[in-house]
């Protein structure tokens, strides 16, 4: 569902939201598998996934704020300066 959110919504913030949904899905999967195999490694990985998600959300939102200040638009199709 996260990947659907990334490709279907036309707003920069929704793209980052989709990435968060995907990271949460990975976390659920890892914790479930750590229960299946009775091993604590999955939960250790999830701890680092949380930390990394927090770091990339802060950087991503800072970039969005900067890009909004530069161009004034939240639509990803307006960022086609390479064309």
């Amino acid at each position, binding site marked *: *569902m996260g*990947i*659907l*959110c990334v*490709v*279907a*919504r*036309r*707003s*920069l*913030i*929704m793209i*980052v*939201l*989709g990435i*968060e*949904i995907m990271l*949460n899905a990975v*976390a*659920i999967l890892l*914790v*479930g598998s*750590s*229960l*299946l195999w*009775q091993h*604590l490694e999955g*939960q*250790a990985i*999830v*701890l*680092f996934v*949380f*930390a*990394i*998600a*927090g*770091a*990339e*959300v*802060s*950087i991503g*939102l*800072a*970039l*969005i*704020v*900067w890009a*909004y*200040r*530069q161009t004034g638009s*939240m*639509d990803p*199709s307006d960022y086609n300066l390479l064309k």
Partner: protein
Amino acid sequence: MTIYSIIFYFLATLILATTAMAITRRNLVHAVIYLIFSFFGSAMLFYLFGAPFLAVLEVIIYAGAIMVLFLFVVIMMRADTGDERLFAARQWLPIAVFGLIYIAIGMGIITADPNSRITLKTARAAPKVFGQFIFENHWLSIEIVSLLLLVALVGALVIGRRSRRPPIAQTTNGEL
């Protein structure tokens, strides 16, 4: 049909329903609030899977800090008042591809029947044991992640700073 599986199916449908609502809302604040509900549901799922420390951590970090940061950006950038077509027709190919993959994998997961009907043994990782495990085996990863958080902090500060100089588009007026 044990009580654990009832709780699990209830939580799974809660998470799926709130996430589906979150990605289809036109109002961005509504979408973030639905996603907060989804994270609370998955925190309860973590507690069911025997990871109480991770459940609390998810509420604190994800629903408490990251989503609040999203709300700040949405409200300050006034991104919720933009006019945005919900599902743009220009993007139909990636939507169709990923939608088909999602439906195929979802159907495969739902109908896949493990032969031995795996019953999960309930376990519980007490935070003390979990902390000892992490600091014994993965102390290097913790150091690296703390360095990463420091770099992210500095980077976000540098990017978000309101610069004194005018943007580049204005300074290159007469020169190349």
